[in-house]
């Protein structure tokens, strides 16, 4: 127990306000004062100024906490801000009485956090949204002020944690067009921001350092009985990068488990829809307040969180199977209820009005495989994510051979394949087992994903469906020829990237043959393929530049270069590109697809040294013109990096199935 002192709440409030102004002023002017004093050659040390300013902010918080407590005590003694005075018409303002408060105990901002937690608990327990909103009107301001205050955060989340995560269910509107009022959104936003900040805080130093939210506290919050409410804190909370990845990963697992177990993950229904329009509106409401999607989106923004979920060797596959699915839409409704009995005599009809929800799923899958290539733990999880996504897709293809996955999910699968071309290429000729490991089993090499051939086959059966998609993907592979040539030369191991890419190309072709596309559709495919090649050509073939050819970074550099996603919006732009395409005859196309990238690859790897005045190379880039054709025919039998130019070209042609 501390020291009890008598205080006048009104004066205390005034004092707090002035202290706050003083701190604001110092914080704003501090750097200028420092600069000026330095310029004038002051010998005073200002090193501690910033520390003092930070301490002043703590003092402001403490005084604020005391002021709140002083008013509370005054109210407990029967004081009210508006009272009736004798002889005066209507209520008048009255000053609160002097109260005695425990100066030390109430000075902690932790105390404020504890009391805010109590207020929240009481307000939510009442289950009346109007009353809760009124009682919580000051909460957002408090949470915001104490965002970086560990004492407050620790006390608030210890006291209110599991309940605060459920706030959305009490706060939502029972009627009206919007599910949440502006005040409710303010409260949810503040709670989300506060939880995100608390999740990243640590207490203690050195070996004693630990997260501010204990594992038990985190579990209580993420494993609550109401996943929808928890999802709303993610929806209204800050960008995924502001959250602790483990908390987001836990939350993602909970949401996916709840969804798989058939628990309620949708916003509360506001009575039975009476009309078709009402039922449609409810589907849209479900999509707008989709809790699972909100959490997936935050985890995708965070990146590491998505990799924690799918990159876990023990549980990642289970969650990958939940994500790679055609169930990502709202449930829809039975239209029969709204039809007259003449049209529809009875029985259930297939649901209608479904809204697609696969966009956050696609974003999550992409994020899960997007760690920077290398030897880090993050790169390891990323590689495991690839293994699991391929396995989950193959499972889906086997169980539902006639079902096509939602477009956003398939686009994510194509992204996975594009980003991991060299991994898929080295996996493609064997069917032993799948797993993430370091290239060549060497600890200095980047993590790679190895998948069994039958899994890769099932994966591509689902990922690629339309002729254009096959075209784009083949174009992407062909555009990597230069990189594959350079990589084969530069990789310190005896790996042959061209050959491996050829194996993968063969698999894509086999999968395509199962589609039996019509001849006209093949033309679409060719057009798409040429477009990718041309887009890459106009942007420069390959992206490989070796700063240190035999350094430890070479492998990661090769893999990144081989997998740079070219499937972006640069395709299909500009009339010049289209004109070039229309203008190109078969022989020129051949030059484009093989000779140019091969020579570029040899140049990138430093195996070809053109004379400085060679007209077919400008700024390190090979220019496909008549001079290049001459040079190629003159050097057909010259050996570069152990092989003749003709052999290199034949290898590339074989790899990309382009023999005439």
């Amino acid at each position, binding site marked *: 127990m501390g020291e009890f002192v008598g205080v006048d709440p009104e004066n205390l409030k005034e004092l707090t306000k002035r202290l706050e102004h003083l701190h604001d002023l110092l914080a704003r002017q501090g750097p200028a004062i420092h600069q000026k004093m330095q310029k004038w050659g002051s010998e005073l040390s200002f090193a501690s100024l910033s520390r003092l300013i930070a301490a002043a902010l703590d003092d402001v918080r403490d005084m604020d906490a005391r002021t709140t407590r002083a008013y509370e005590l005054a109210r407990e003694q029967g004081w009210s801000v508006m009272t009736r005075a004798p002889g005066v018409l209507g209520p008048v303002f009255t000053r609160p009485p002097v109260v005695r408060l425990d100066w030390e105990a109430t000075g902690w901002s932790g105390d404020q956090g504890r009391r805010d937690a109590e207020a929240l608990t009481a307000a939510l327990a009442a289950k009346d949204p109007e009353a809760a909103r009124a009682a919580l009107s000051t909460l957002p301001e408090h949470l915001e002020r104490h965002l970086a205050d560990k004492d407050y955060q620790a006390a608030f989340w210890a006291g209110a944690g599991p309940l605060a995560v459920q706030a959305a269910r009490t706060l939502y509107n029972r009627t009206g067009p919007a599910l949440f009022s502006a005040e409710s959104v303010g409260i949810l936003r503040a709670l989300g921001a506060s939880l995100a900040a608390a999740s990243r805080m640590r207490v203690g130093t050195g070996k004693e350092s630990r997260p501010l939210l204990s594992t038990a506290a985190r579990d209580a919050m993420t494993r609550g009985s109401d996943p929808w409410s928890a999802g709303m804190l993610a929806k209204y909370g800050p960008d995924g990068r502001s959250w602790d990845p483990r908390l987001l990963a836990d939350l993602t697992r909970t949401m996916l488990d709840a969804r798989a177990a058939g628990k309620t993950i949708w916003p509360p229904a506001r009575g039975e829809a009476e009309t078709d329009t009402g039922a449609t509106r409810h589907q849209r409401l479900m999509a707008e307040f989709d809790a699972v999607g909100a959490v997936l989106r935050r985890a995708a923004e965070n990146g590491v969180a998505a990799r924690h979920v799918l990159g876990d060797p023990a549980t990642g596959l289970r969650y990958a199977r939940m994500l790679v699915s055609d169930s990502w839409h709202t449930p829809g409704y039975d239209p029969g209820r709204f039809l007259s009995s003449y049209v529809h005599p009875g029985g259930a009809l297939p649901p209608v009005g479904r809204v697609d929800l696969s966009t956050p799923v696609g974003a999550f899958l992409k994020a899960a495989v997007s760690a920077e290539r290398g030897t880090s733990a993050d790169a390891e999880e990323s590689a495991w994510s690839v293994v699991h996504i391929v396995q989950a897709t193959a499972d889906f293809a086997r169980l539902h051979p006639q079902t096509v996955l939602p477009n956003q999910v398939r686009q994510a699968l194509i992204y996975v394949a594009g980003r991991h071309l060299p991994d898929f290429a080295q996996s493609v000729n064997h069917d032993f087992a799948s797993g993430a490991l370091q*290239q060549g089993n060497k600890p200095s090499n980047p993590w790679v994903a190895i998948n069994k051939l039958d899994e890769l086959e099932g994966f591509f059966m689902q990922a690629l469906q339309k002729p254009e998609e096959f075209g784009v993907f083949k174009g992407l592979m062909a555009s990597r020829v230069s990189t594959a040539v350079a990589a084969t030369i530069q990789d310190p191991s005896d790996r*042959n990237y061209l*050959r491996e890419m050829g194996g993968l190309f063969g698999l894509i072709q086999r999968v395509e043959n199962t*589609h039996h596309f019509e001849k006209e559709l093949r033309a679409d495919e060719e057009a798409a393929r040429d477009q990718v090649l041309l887009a890459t050509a106009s942007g420069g073939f390959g992206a490989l530049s070796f700063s240190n050819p035999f350094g430890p970074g070479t492998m990661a550099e090769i893999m990144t270069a081989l997998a740079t996603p070219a499937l972006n919006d640069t395709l299909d732009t500009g009339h010049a590109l289209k004109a070039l395409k229309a203008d190109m005859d078969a022989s020129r196309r051949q030059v484009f697809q093989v000779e140019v990238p091969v020579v570029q690859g040899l140049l990138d790897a430093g195996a070809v040294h053109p004379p400085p005045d060679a007209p077919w190379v400008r700024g390190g880039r090979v220019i496909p013109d008549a001079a290049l054709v001459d040079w190629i025919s003159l050097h057909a039998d010259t050996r570069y990096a152990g092989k003749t130019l003709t052999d290199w070209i034949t290898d590339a042609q074989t790899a990309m199935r382009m023999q005439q």
Partner: protein
Amino acid sequence: MTTTRLAVLAMCALVLLSACTERKPPPPVNDEVKKRDAALVAVVQCLVDHDRIPAAHLEHQPWLKGEKVQPSAELVTWRSDHEETVYEGKTLQAWEDEATAAWPGWRCPF
């Protein structure tokens, strides 16, 4: 009458279209890859048994338990790093291709 006939025609067209887009499930992994898997294990086992692979190439390789080659993902990535490495006058790739072509009749030549 005409509308009914049109509707019937449209239905038929739909049935035909769906039949066109229907796809067979992916074929099982073909015999070629099963042969290739067996051939690779046999070739590497043969080279290991007769000390034809330099010790440095086998250091800390998890697919080699004792003297026994384990078919695994680790073997796939090791193979990839050594596909152009020459052992006894032939690249590992050439060894694998030859053994696959001759499978199951291939025998270790040493």
